[in-house]
């Protein structure tokens, strides 16, 4: 096994093109676990990405109202201002990831590269309709996040492609993330949800994690909530929130496994959606 440590994106892409079976290594917090557990054999070539400076930077385009994050940005970086102020839901999701050590090493690109249904960054990317820039020796392409995540640990990346950066809109309006696990920290999500309000367009996005083979967007619930909100006051009726919870539960398609039951996951994700909506808006009616 050889370890390549490219320092430019071009070099990384060229190496990957020459060795399509090579393994990309970012923070290694998924990849090394898989190797240690014997689920993955180290490929003949491992390409370490952490010295590729292009992947480790981010930029804010105030005119376009977007933030573009290099695939190698860590959770620790996402949790701190200015990124945390620009992308609050991503910061909240990052705070739920693992432990300080994992957050120092783990990257958003690696989260997407793994594409676990429980990846905590992914519901946020989905709720914000992220754009993913994918590069290869053939050039680069932009793909919608919804087209990149295909299923359980399955992306639409070709073997010679890598994720370079992810672009997200800076939205006005509340956004947040909540995650249920059986422990108070360092735990894989049993159910999670991101809710992001777009005040400009008077719309709401809700995306769910761990309740389907990949992240689920809840269009019906989103529309129900958006139409129930009084956008001038930010007030929404208590019953409408209850209905949002039901629609979210209905949109989920969880399984029963050793971590939880489908029934609990469906229930929990509905509760999370209600509570996130409660944080986003002022509730009219029964006290929360």
């Amino acid at each position, binding site marked *: 096994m050889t370890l390549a440590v490219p320092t430019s994106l071009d070099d990384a892409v060229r190496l990957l093109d020459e060795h399509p079976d090579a393994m990309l290594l970012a923070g290694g917090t998924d990849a090394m676990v898989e190797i*240690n557990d014997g689920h993955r054999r180290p490929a003949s070539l491992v390409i370490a990405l952490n010295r590729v400076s292009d992947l480790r930077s981010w930029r804010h385009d105030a005119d376009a109202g977007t933030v573009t994050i290099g695939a190698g940005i860590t959770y620790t970086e996402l949790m701190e201002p200015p990124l945390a102020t620009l992308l609050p839901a991503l910061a909240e999701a990052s*705070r739920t990831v693992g432990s300080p050590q994992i957050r120092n090493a783990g990257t958003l690109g690696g989260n997407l590269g793994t594409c676990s249904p429980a990846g905590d960054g992914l519901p946020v990317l989905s709720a914000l309709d992220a754009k993913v820039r994918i590069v290869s020796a053939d050039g680069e392409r932009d793909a919608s996040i919804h087209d990149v995540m295909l299923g359980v640990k399955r992306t639409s990346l070709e073997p010679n492609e890598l994720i370079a950066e992810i672009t997200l809109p800076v939205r006005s309006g509340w956004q947040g993330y909540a995650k249920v696990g059986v422990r*108070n*920290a360092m735990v894989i999500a049993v159910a999670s949800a991101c809710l992001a309000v777009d005040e400009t367009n008077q719309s709401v996005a809700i995306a769910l994690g761990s309740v389907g083979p990949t992240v689920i967007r809840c269009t019906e619930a989103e529309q129900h909530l958006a139409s129930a909100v009084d956008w001038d006051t930010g007030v929404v009726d208590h019953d409408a929130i209850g209905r949002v919870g039901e629609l979210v539960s209905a949109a989920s398609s969880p399984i029963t496994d050793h971590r939880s039951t489908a029934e609990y996951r469906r229930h929990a994700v509905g509760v999370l959606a209600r509570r996130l909506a409660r944080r986003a808006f002022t509730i009219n009616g029964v006290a929360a």
Partner: protein
Amino acid sequence: MTVIEEPRTTIRSGTIGDSPVRPDGVAKVQGTYAFSSDLHADGCLFGATLRSPHPHARIVAIDLSAAWKLNGVEAVITAEDVPGQLTYGLIAQDQPVFAVDVVRYVGEPIAAVAAIDPETARRALDAIEVTYEVLTPLLDPEAAIAGGHDPIHPDGNLIRHQHIVHGDPSATGAVVVEGTYEIGMQDQAFLGLEAAIAYPDPGADGVELHVATQWLHEDQKQIAACLGFADEKVRMVLGGVGGAFGAREDISLQVHTCLLALRLARPVRMAYSRAESFLGHVHRHPATIWMRHHADADGRLVNVEARFVFDGGAYASTSSAVLVNGITMAQGPYACPNGMVDGYAARTNHLPCGAMRGFGAVQACFAYESQMDKLAAACGVEPAEIRLRNAMKTGDTLFTGQPVLNVAPVEDCIRETMALPLPDEPVGGTPLSDGSQDAMKLPGGAGRTADAGDIVRGIGWGVSIKNLMYSENFDDYSTARCRLADGVATLKFATAEVGQGFITIAAQIARSILGVDEVELDQIDTHIGSAGSTSASRQTWMSGGAVDAACRAARERLFEAVGTAHGIEPIRLMIEGTDVIDTAGDLRIPVVEASSGLTIDETIEYHHPPTEDLDENGQGNCHTAFAFVAHRAVVDVDPELGLVKVVQIATAQDVGNALNPLSVVGQIEGGIAQGLGLAVMEEIIQIDGVIRNGNFTDYLLPTFLDMPPVLATLIEQPDPHAPLGAKGVGEPPCISSTPAVVAAIRDALRQAGIDAPLDRVPVRPADICL
């Protein structure tokens, strides 16, 4: 955490009652301590174990040829290569070194290999071809007890049945409460994985094994039998042990490592991964316990009826002793004139179960404490009050007819726990400096699932009794040697230091008894008699007793020498500080000086008084001694999501005499973490006999953020039966903390208008909210 205790009078540094720093503490904190998994020898080979993927199957054929052909593979061995006894076991020798003809659980060893590196060893395992005829597994302990199923082992499907009848078992009371309780399978989850290195003697007629274990001499006996050696041909040295909790009482990789090393005449090292560790050691027994309590209208117990079923898994291990611990503690730390208990330990094709901290008492306690809460509710009294009304006292009798002759300060444990303050922070804690909520203070923690308004708080109680030392006519003695010369005491014992801190208190004992400052500890190995196991909360009492006795014997020799030199009756001499003094005269000589040039060398075996077997009615003085503890848990619950945050645990523990208060507190905090784990998250999940969460991603242990502050009061009433007055403190903290946490969850839910039975641990979110 806060420890609330009486200020101690001045204690000479490093002696009994002081809390000197552990000799291995700094190295452990800095990461330089050598655990057994760090052992290495030049030119050593790496062993690996092939394990069964089936819970029950006949082995039709094993083809080793492809494995042998791999470059770098030096040995491939199976049951055919075991020269001695083919099976081992702590009580019954029913567990094969390697499976012969049948496999009985997922993970059962079938073959082992040694290769030049771990990766080659792994590939060799992949190359071994085993042909199985898959059999229907026996997974229901009730079916094993009922007897309809074909025996899955020549010893049958029932490991032990024991009945206890006491007083008038048909007695009834005005108030009757009943319930069936379930306890899931918990893992000891020590951090230092199983590892050993074996050095064959030249000529391969003996072997030296360095291993992390709880009991060197028991390992030695079992290994020697399997190797076909005399015991002394197997020399055991304790490797650095990273926790044990019962999981190192049984043989795991010991025999395999020795067999490979002897076969190859080269050192061989074996080390388990976390996944393999889950398969390679025994676990806490899952149990189903039915209980019916009868009490008078005031809630005073009249009769307890109970039926215990422990799932022992595929091999006997210590199941029969776990069973007896469980059923003989059925009444809990409460006086009760009548009782009838039936207990079964069944054999199934699940993972084998055996010792884990609390050893049967944990399962019993979850059942009887849940019952005491039901009784309190039925009688309309507070949970603490019902326990005070029934609290056992010194001299009360167990259902076995055995009087509890130890100090039994059950009432003090409860009252002192009640006296500890409740948390002063409201639900969710005080807001952060920017006015926002600290998510870590709410159930759901980092997941930010709740706001303070979603949460209810509850309080729950748990009180328990635990027997100390081994029971049922077992002489689990301990041996210690003390040499004294030139003011330096040198101690030797085979007591396994597994992290509990015996090496610290052994030196404290020597300093106190002999008036020395300098104490050296010899290597922990089998070049001295047995110390018994580091389990059953017994080493402070047993090995502490042996060290104490050896030091006292050495002190007598010292007094004789001083007496002879100064023409004084040795009886007049005593140690004061670091001096020998004449109680009837002026003589005062520093021990350093008095012991200069002497060679004092004393070895003592310490035995506890004999215990008895139980008769067919479960009567007999089967236990050695008892310790007690009370726990009060404060828990915040999110009733809608079923998530829990334990906010505080208060405890008062009967410790006899705290030889090292800091060590005692360490045991209390650690044990509570383990009890909390069983209450709300820790469980090995097997589906159709296959483990599904044999890793730390999915076998969840409490983290720092799940562990609440602990308030502890040490009840120090020196026990006259205990050497140094000190009771074992290791197990009690994890026993009643579990039911206390669950009771607090039930209490919180009642305040939210929910009456959830929560008759199973660990409590899962869905048990609360669905």
